[in-house]
């Protein structure tokens, strides 16, 4: 596979070559090493030949160092999320910019925890991650990114992202298909003219739907449509590990119940209405 690296704007984009086989794409690991391992095993059993991760390895969950060996074992091709950038650059906080004081306090506690437990070697590894990755699939130009093709921290929510906007962003990114994460909620939309946006969701935190499963996107060979796969894993062991590490009980509650308990103010009306908090 060619390893040519080009820069478009501020984002370093790796060229992932042409590949038509089955692939699995994960996002938002948030230190949930138990779910990450379960999802990758699931994807391999389904027949995925390449694995991609769209960033945000840390935050929220326990023992952040445990995700790196798993990514390595499966040869997961990873790009950087905003959390990874913050850790790599030793920033004082995650820069999440929540509006509710309690949310900022949760974000601070989980960032301080993750930051303290990130080694110099891991920081160097994060620093080297590209900001995007291009693939050619079935003659279509795919772009894998974290937030949006233009911003690492832009939220693409289903109910607050319009078709004309997506069509323009994809056109400007010279992509027929964009895969992203950052919001933690999975969705996809074919666009007029044949383009497609897929938000692969998060493998680190449930989707605010009252079930403890987490989600990733599986693309069968030659397929452009994502199959969103729910992953059952031992969430109780993760919740206990979070408690043992002194992480906020609200985080463990989300892992157990599947309902988001914090950082809810960034949700648009429709997504907010689907949860219970």
């Amino acid at each position, binding site marked *: 596979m060619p390893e040519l690296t080009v820069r478009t704007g501020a984002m370093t984009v790796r060229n992932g070559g042409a590949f038509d086989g089955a692939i699995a794409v994960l996002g938002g690991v948030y230190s949930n090493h138990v779910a990450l391992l379960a999802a990758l095993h699931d994807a391999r059993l389904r027949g995925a030949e390449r694995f991609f991760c769209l960033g945000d390895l840390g935050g929220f969950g326990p023992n952040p160092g445990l995700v790196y060996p798993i990514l390595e074992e499966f040869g997961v091709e990873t790009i950087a999320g905003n959390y990874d950038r913050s850790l790599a650059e030793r920033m004082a906080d995650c820069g999440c*910019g929540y*509006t*509710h*004081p*309690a949310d900022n306090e949760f974000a601070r506690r989980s960032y301080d925890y993750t930051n303290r437990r990130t080694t110099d070697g891991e920081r160097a590894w994060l620093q080297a991650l590209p900001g995007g990755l291009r693939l050619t699939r079935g003659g279509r130009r795919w772009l894998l990114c974290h937030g949006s093709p233009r*911003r690492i921290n832009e939220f693409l*929510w*289903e*109910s*607050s*992202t*319009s*078709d*004309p*906007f997506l*069509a*323009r*962003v994809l056109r400007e990114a010279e992509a027929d298909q964009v895969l992203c994460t950052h919001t933690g909620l999975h969705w996809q939309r074919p666009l007029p003219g044949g383009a497609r946006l897929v938000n692969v969701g998060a493998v680190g935190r449930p989707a605010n739907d009252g079930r403890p499963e987490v989600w990733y996107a599986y693309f069968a060979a030659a397929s452009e449509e994502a199959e969103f796969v729910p992953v059952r894993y031992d969430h109780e062991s993760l919740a206990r590990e979070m408690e043992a590490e002194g992480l906020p009980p609200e985080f463990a509650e989300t892992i157990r119940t599947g309902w988001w308990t914090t950082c*809810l*103010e960034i949700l*648009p*009306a*429709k*997504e*907010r*209405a689907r*949860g219970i*908090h």
Partner: protein
Amino acid sequence: MWFQVAGTLCNLTCRHCFISCSPTNHNHELMSRAEVRRYLDEARSLGVNDYYFTGGEPFLNREILEILEDALAAGPATVLTNATLLTPGRAGALAALERASRYSLEVRVSLDGPSAESNDPIRGEGSFDATMGGIAALAAAGLHPIVTVARTWSDAQDQAAREEFHRFLRAHGLSRPRVKVLPLFLVGREVERTHGYPAEAMLTQEHMRGHDPWLLQCSTSRMVTSRGVMVCPILIDAPDARMGRTLRESLRAHPLGHGACHTCWETGATCRN
């Protein structure tokens, strides 16, 4: 993209209003559905993402529900209101629009204190009760409004004030309280209530060094009023605010030459949700 859909006409006369809206301010007039539609069509062709409708008080515009319906066909929409005119019937109609669209409809309600004693000196006698009536109607219709508060307190009081608003709204039947805090802009009627900008509140190249221009709302949005396309919602009365008749004409840089620009830079404020 923003629409001054009610012009500068409002049933309230808030003492901090940065564009001095009132029942008699005709600086900017109501916009018709046909007028808004022309801009929506242009916005679609340019790939605009979302639409905001403000005034004045948007529910003084008789076509507001039809205008919101048109906008929701193009993308997510937000309406900014004082909620005093939101009857249960209108709240129900908004909820029906929200359900019918695959995009979110946000209802943003302005309120400046969790009691008549704290709110009414700024927003006018009786406005607290009228706004709370509107909020109750929205909640009963199943909507989750965002309550927008102008920040009239100090840094030291900030956390407590935000938490108080959340508690207050929960106690008043909002199961998912949402609060947005905006800084005061020292323009319009606020100049009489407190004071205007000092001469030194002006951005220079030095301020912008290392500053991400993306954080300034004017880098990604424009405001349409009955008088044309303006650079932003705050400055519609500034002599240099008008950038053209069409959106396309407004797709260029604008000098950050106002005290209000300094407020956006300093606070990271955006009129967005």
